[in-house]
């Protein structure tokens, strides 16, 4: 049993265990954290397969963006899971019927042995031996598919502009931190010497806007 096998079993066990915890965990925030552990272990499995690009993608996109977004959603929405579960028994028959239909379809699909017409052998593009798969993807994306790549980039730009246009409100009178102003403040503007008469009091200036 080589080192690879040891790491495979390590990653696989952890992925399965934390995957199970995602479903079992009572606290939804814990569930999302377990989901992140699952993603990391799946990324480890990808590295063992030699698919380092997919592994990094999983860490950056799923852990870095999707899981964090899940966390935000879970925390912001404050879903009452006890209430959600209350309808479980009532809706169970419908769920069972739908599940049964899908199961029957899966069985029917898998029992059909041959796929007609047979899948073309060349569908999976061969990976060149002398380049890493990140390089291979880059060589395709930036040459043959550069038009689609840039087009998809523009679509994402529109999505970003749209999200800002529709949600960003510029409110008046909000106090923001301005580090440059704070650093530029010297003793002359920040400190004011006041002579206080004995028994008198200090009246603060009205705050500057």
């Amino acid at each position, binding site marked *: 049993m080589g080192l690879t096998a040891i790491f495979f079993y390590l990653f696989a066990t952890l992925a399965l265990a934390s995957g199970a915890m995602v479903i079992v965990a009572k606290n939804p925030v814990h569930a999302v954290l377990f989901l992140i552990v699952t993603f990391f272990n799946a990324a480890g499995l990808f590295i063992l397969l030699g698919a380092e690009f997919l592994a990094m993608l999983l860490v950056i996109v799923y852990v870095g963006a999707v899981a964090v977004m899940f966390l935000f959603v879970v925390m912001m929405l404050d879903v009452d899971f006890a209430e959600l579960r209350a309808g479980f028994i009532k809706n169970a028959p419908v769920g069972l019927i739908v599940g049964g239909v899908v199961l029957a379809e899966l069985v029917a699909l898998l029992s059909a042995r041959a796929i007609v017409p047979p899948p*073309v052998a060349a569908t999976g593009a061969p990976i060149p031996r002398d380049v890493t798969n990140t390089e291979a993807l880059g060589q395709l994306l930036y040459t043959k598919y550069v038009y689609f790549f840039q087009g998809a980039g*523009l*679509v994402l730009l529109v999505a970003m*502009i749209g999200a800002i246009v529709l949600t960003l409100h510029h409110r008046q009178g909000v106090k923001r931190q301005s580090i440059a102003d704070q650093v530029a403040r010297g003793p002359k503007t920040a400190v004011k010497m006041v002579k206080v008469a004995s028994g008198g009091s200090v009246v603060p200036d009205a705050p500057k806007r």
Partner: protein
Amino acid sequence: MPADMLNFAAAYPEMILAAGAIALLMIGAFGGTQGNSDRAGWLAILALAATGVAVAMQTGTERAFNDAFISDNFARFVKLLVLSGSAVAILLSMDDLRRAKADRFEIPVLILLATVGMMMMISANDLLALYLGLELQSLALYVLAAARRDDVRSSEAGMKYFVLGALSSGMLLYGASLLYGFAGTTSFAGLATAAAAPNAAANLGLIVGLVFLLVGLAFKVSAVPFHMWTPDVYEGAPTPITAFFAAAPKLAAMALLARVLMDGFGGLFIQWQKIIIFLSIASMLLGAFAAIGQTNIKRLMAYSSIGHVGFALVGLAAGGEQGVQALLIYLAIYLVMTLGSFACILAMRRDGQPVEDISELSGLAQNNLPMAFILAMLLFSLAGVPPLAGFFGKFYVFAAAVKAELYGLAIIGVLASVVGAFYYLRIVKVMFFDEAKPRFTPAAPYVRLVMIAAGLFVVLYAVYPQPLVAAAETAAKSLQL
């Protein structure tokens, strides 16, 4: 991958416009807020003009990016129309959005990006390029529909458009994936080979894929029975944005439809012709009958646009060079009539507030005869009364249908346009013979300019139709039939 296979030069216009949109975004974000939106509007028009020059300078048929992109006479003809439609829409929008306090610099930027999407659609020669262009255009349009986000109707329009648009994109993608599965390629040339195979009509996967693709595109051009979103979105969106919706995106989607059907599925003509005939008849009839009961002029224009899509589809159903030529002429005339009518709708303001009811137009002839006259001419033209431009548009498509021996379609079309004439003429009656209401607030100069230009075009088209007809003929020749 040799660089000449990519052939970047063919896509220079798109690149200029995309770079212009991004530059405008930077100027808007960092250039301060004073007088921001007007400057953004003029710069956007400048970018569109520069792109138009770049389009006009291209010649011949150029393919780029491994045949995913094609620039031919057909593409250039529609691109120039779309660019001018977008420019006029921006011109119309500046004053109105400022008064509604919705004049954000992002709106011209989004219009520019939507226009890039339309140009990508027009030049698409591959299913992937088709989808990316369509999605770029649609996504920008969803945001534009909701541009007045504090207004309930505008938000509702944006939401409705987004949900239904996403559904239609899903159907289109499903069709595209079926086509890819059964033809083994996403390029139109490859699809044409698959469609020309002797047993193609019996290839169920190909046919089902084609049907789903057509459903998705019919949604985008709002052909019946996929038109449900149109009246609500047209009514809810800010009026200049509605003018934009009714003009440029329709043209781009129709051009895309023509190219994918003619270039990609020429071999399945008999199969798709039936679908197009059904869409066409249903759109013409619904457009004519549903518009009769409308009281809001923007809703009326929505039904009118549904009807006009039906008439334009007659040209596509006829097929062949003459059919495409008729389609292109119809679209060009429709663009001018629509923008002119919306300029008139934008001029409907009383005490600074926009009004949208048809009854508000009553007696317009008594206190603003020029506007009443121009609007009447535009409405007569939309109805297809000779000798105005709209009549010739209808004449060309019906002539193409008769030549293709689609007599039933032509007869239904003529009947539908007679029914449609009723509701256009009702507005003319309201304007000229009903009791006068108080005057409208004087319209912004550019709105008046667009109105006058459109009015002159529809009246004088009959005098000198040759340039448009000839250009459409050259354009139609470049589609493989």
